[in-house]
């Protein structure tokens, strides 16, 4: 028996407002399903979340779990109960049953979190990195990552970058890496900011640190290693001990489809809010608010030229900035 030359099990073309689908074998117990092409298109994530929700309504025997990515989903199955081709058939039927992307409705919440830019914990993470891992990393010049983000994106000054972070809602595409870490993407494409990741990675990051890697923001749920450029600190997003009531039902604050907005505070204020959150005196600001994909598509169309101009400026700056 010879092994397949390619792990690709099947592909289908885009049809009826649905993206192309690629099914990839991922070991003997998982299939990775990819949607569309490798581009930063939020509608692909909307489709992923719609498929994920449909899958939980229409499970199949032998289907063990699904885990969304940005434009993909990992499906774990028991091949002795559900053959790979049956799994692929089940998924492709499911895809057909879904509405076109602009009609998708996604349950969503808006969560407002405080952020302190250029906080001392992030500074000390960068200092530690310079001291113990790499002295000459261009992303750590001046013992912070913020100036690098500013330069890489062609911002005139730090405030312009901070404004971009504050100006848009951030879409939680999926949770992963560590327990509860949200992968978040700006909803308004005029405020896309991009940064390469650390090389090599950092060994320490503070809990609650906010970072940027590629076009994606993350809030670190636990003290950990990390590769994103650090620029601020927010509140705990994971607490197994449920010291705040928000974690009582579930130790993870965020879930896919949540939109995060940031409110700027001083580090002093943040630290006192942090203490209040831990002592269960602070109430996380969360509002149920379904996400309107149609309205998003309209906005995206309306700001297309502006976003494109911004992208060009950003790419010019990036071309003249060293990569770590």
């Amino acid at each position, binding site marked *: 028996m010879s092994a397949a030359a390619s792990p690709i099990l099947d592909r289908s073309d885009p049809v009826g407002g649905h993206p192309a689908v690629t099914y990839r074998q991922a*070991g003997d117990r998982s299939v990775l399903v990819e949607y569309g092409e*490798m581009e930063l298109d939020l509608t692909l994530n909307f489709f992923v979340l719609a498929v994920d929700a449909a899958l939980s309504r229409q499970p199949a025997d032998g289907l063990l779990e699904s885990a969304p990515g*940005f434009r993909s989903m990992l499906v774990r199955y028991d*091949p002795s109960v559900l053959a*790979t081709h049956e799994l692929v058939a089940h998924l492709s039927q499911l895809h057909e049953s879904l509405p076109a992307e602009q009609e998708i409705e996604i349950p969503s919440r808006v969560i407002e979190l405080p952020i302190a830019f250029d906080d001392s914990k992030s500074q000390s993470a960068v200092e530690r990195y310079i001291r113990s891992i790499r002295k000459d990393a261009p992303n750590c010049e001046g013992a912070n990552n913020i100036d690098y983000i500013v330069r890489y994106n062609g911002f005139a000054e730090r405030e312009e970058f901070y404004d971009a972070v504050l100006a848009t809602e951030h879409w939680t595409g*999926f949770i*992963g890496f560590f327990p509860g870490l949200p992968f978040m993407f700006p909803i308004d494409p005029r405020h896309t900011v991009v940064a390469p990741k650390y090389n090599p990675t950092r060994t320490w990051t503070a809990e609650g640190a906010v970072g940027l890697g*590629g076009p994606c923001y993350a809030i670190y*749920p636990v003290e950990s290693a990390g590769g994103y450029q650090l620029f601020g600190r927010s509140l705990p997003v994971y607490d*197994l001990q449920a010291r705040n009531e928000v974690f009582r039902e579930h130790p993870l604050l965020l879930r896919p489809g949540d939109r995060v907005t940031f409110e700027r505070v001083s580090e002093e204020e943040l630290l006192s809010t942090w203490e209040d959150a831990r002592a269960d005196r602070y109430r996380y600001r969360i509002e149920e608010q379904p996400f309107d994909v149609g309205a998003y598509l309209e906005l995206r169309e309306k700001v297309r030229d502006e976003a494109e101009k911004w992208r060009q400026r950003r790419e010019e700056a990036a071309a003249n900035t060293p990569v770590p």
Partner: protein
Amino acid sequence: MRGGATIEILKPGVQATVQDYPGRPGMLRQGFFPSGAMDFLALRAGNLLVGNPQSAAGLEVTLGGFSARFETDATMAICGAPAETTLDGEPVALWESRRAPAGSELTIAISPGPGFRCYIAVSGGIDVPQLFGSRATYTMGGLGGFEGRALRAGDRLPLGPAGENGQPRRFNETARPHYDREWEVEAMRGPQATPDFLTDADMQQFFGRSWKVDRNSDRTGVRLESHRFEYARDTGGVAGGHPSNILDNPYPVGAININGDLPVLLGPDGPTAGGFIVAATVVHAALWKVGQLRPVGDHVRFREVTIEEAAAAEQELETRLSENSLEPA
């Protein structure tokens, strides 16, 4: 029933944790890899020997240099990497069950190899509280096991109620795994391999060469050595400058991640998602071997198998891990 029965850790060695099988699968979407025994074959064999369900929690001891005291009568078995092991100074054979009287002291010396981890199974199992359906320790998330952390001297671990204390038994020679300094690990190519991410030559190299195991390896991942792949793409595009970069996606357990130019075999405490291609994935029946790769000096080759071969290997593993493999000691 032995109310309040415990084992006291005297010396934990490099790292000792409470682990079970299969850990807590089903939480990928929340960012949890399953944890659990890295070499589940050894833990399951130990549980079989002491009359526990194979899923029961035991101790995973890394490298050795470990000692503990039984504070109650128990049946125990140690399976895994060979090391000089004694109970109250008397030699203990691995892959065999025996009685450990209350007060006796178990000592495991540093293992000379081959292999890297051994497992202590105790009748009744280590009875720490279950979290999300498992007793496995996940140190990165600070949860499970004993207080969510690796064991320290002075920790007293509760034992569950044990069944009948059976006669000493042995896991027979033919059922025992073979440990070596040169490992062959069965894997399937992908999900990101030929033709769109790596070239045929890359995959031939990947499955053809022997990889050195790097010293910076632990339960989150086993690092191999840097290798220049040709790659089928020039860059990672929007996902990053390097052709190993992709838009962040979920990883399967057993993924062999191409991290820049460095392949990393993701362990049971590894990251659930990330932005690097996965050239191949270790099949479930071979995952236990990853727990025995010794960070300095061991080499590993990946043997490409089909899903049918993976299923056959799984059946063979289950057959090995049955009462039929036990004989009186």
